[in-house]
């Protein structure tokens, strides 16, 4: 008589320590082996896009903050670039420089959270607090600039909400000097830890062709070995003036495109962001950050699709204007939303513990997935 066996359905989340928010994963298990993963999203759905249709263009900016709450500066950045493109206005040099510096600081802060929580997923608690300690310093820099620590509403259409603090340049330089050695410390503690490598190398391998077909972008795509970074690919703002590298996954510890590669690309990217900030910080020209802010924002009829390299990938804003003061339609192409889709493909055949490792390595923010 054949023994009748069944697979077990395990609901991971929406309340679970490692789903990075309110993601629900329906795991079909054979013992501890994954047969299928079904992500269920929408628990944080606020319908940003509907809100945006009822607001004027500048009023939408605070809502963009609340999507990817770990990279609010960059969400502002993408939106204001899109509206500026629609309006066809130029912004002063000073604004461009400050935007790039803030964007890169935000990228470091966001990667620190990604790396720290990834360590936490694998079971290493201490690196998490080291990362948060360093992130705190960046948040302090943001705080003296605009008064907010998480949701900034800092970049406005045509300018910035506040000019930088007189001490900002000095403090940022101090931060860079302090932060460089801690990247090495982090590598010693986590990246090159034998157990960490055992847990992440050769796990969740994402082949390049699959990654492109699934629209995966950001560090997850670069981890698969393609140097695709929008800052180089189609430079927006003033990114073409800086010298920096695009790190890619090389399969140092396993296969190209495994969890370790995706993780390590983020570590290397922090160093590149520091380089950009170093180049920009001394060249900030004088000027008025409010001079180009238009009195009345009423773009001409038309559409625009503007994409920027958010810490998590390609953040795109598709805006349709009907010539009024409110956008007719704002669609956000959220990198986390698109990257999450590939999870099911990556998890098949792995163990429950690997799902956590894979989910952490694609680094999603649920505020952005659900918008």
């Amino acid at each position, binding site marked *: 008589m054949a023994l009748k066996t069944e697979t077990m359905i395990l609901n991971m989340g929406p309340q679970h320590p490692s789903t990075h928010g309110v993601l629900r994963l329906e795991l079909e298990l054979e013992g501890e082996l994954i047969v299928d993963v079904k992500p269920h999203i929408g628990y944080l759905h606020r*319908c940003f896009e509907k809100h945006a249709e009822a607001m004027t263009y500048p009023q939408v900016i605070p809502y963009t903050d609340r999507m990817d709450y770990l990279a609010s500066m960059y969400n502002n950045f993408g939106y204001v670039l899109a509206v500026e493109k*629609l309006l066809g206005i130029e912004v002063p040099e000073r604004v461009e420089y400050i935007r790039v510096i803030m964007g890169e600081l935000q990228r470091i802060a966001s990667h620190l959270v990604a790396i720290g929580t990834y360590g936490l997923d694998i079971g290493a608690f201490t690196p998490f607090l080291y990362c948060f300690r360093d992130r705190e310093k960046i948040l302090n820099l943001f705080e003296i600039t605009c008064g907010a620590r998480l949701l900034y509403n800092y970049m406005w259409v045509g300018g910035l909400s506040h000019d930088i603090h007189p001490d900002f340049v000095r403090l940022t330089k101090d931060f860079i000097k302090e932060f460089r050695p801690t990247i090495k410390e982090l590598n010693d503690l986590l990246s090159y830890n034998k157990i960490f490598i055992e847990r992440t190398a050769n796990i969740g391998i994402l082949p390049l062709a*699959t990654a492109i077909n699934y*629209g995966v972008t950001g560090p997850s795509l670069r981890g698969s070995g393609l140097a695709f970074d929008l800052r180089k690919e189609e430079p927006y703002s003033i990114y073409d003036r800086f010298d920096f590298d695009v790190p890619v996954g090389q399969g140092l510890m396993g296969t190209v495109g495994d969890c370790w590669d995706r993780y390590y690309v983020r570590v290397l990217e922090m160093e590149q962001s520091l380089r950009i900030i170093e180049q920009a910080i001394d060249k900030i020209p004088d000027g008025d950050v409010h001079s180009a802010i238009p009195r009345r924002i009423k773009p001409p009829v038309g559409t625009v699709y503007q994409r920027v390299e958010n810490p998590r990938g390609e953040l795109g804003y598709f805006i349709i204007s009907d010539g009024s003061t409110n956008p007719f339609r704002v669609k956000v192409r959220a990198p986390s939303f*698109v990257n999450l*889709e590939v999870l099911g493909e990556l998890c098949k055949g792995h163990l429950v513990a690997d799902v956590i490792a894979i989910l952490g390595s694609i680094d999603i923010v649920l505020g952005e997935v659900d918008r």
Partner: protein
Amino acid sequence: MKTPDEIFDILKNNFNDDVIGIEKEQPTEPIIFVNPSAINKVCLFLRDNEELKFDSLMNLSGVDDANGEKVKDNDGSEIIKGGTLSVYYHLYSIKYKHKITLKTSTSREEPRVESVESVWKTANWHEREAYDMFGIIFNNHPDLRRILMPYDWEAGYPLRKDYKNPEFYQGMKVPY
């Protein structure tokens, strides 16, 4: 690298009437109009053609054009009759670094568009979102369910311009 005009010419030669036209009166990039029943074939061609190689779908968004006739509903609120719903496709070629925007429009009463999920897997969730928000039905989509809204949401499609919040959902009061 090809300009949108060149891409339009290539498409026009291959698909005749299914590629309707090109609109260049835009502040940014031009838009090519495509017949909704042929969008999957056009996209497959764009992806596989050696000269075009549009290997990534950057974005897919549904839009309510709100170009129909506005009439009063029984309870006095305004609803839209007729007109179109549209889907925009933003494509990019990593190899040649060129971009193109496609647009396809379908009737509001029976919105049906061919799915491009088989061309780019990333379209799966994008199309589910468009279905969830606008009620656009994508033919041949493998798993067309709601994605952001609850699976049992019965009050319609939120991003349509004439959407009204329901009073109650599962016995819970909705307007706060």
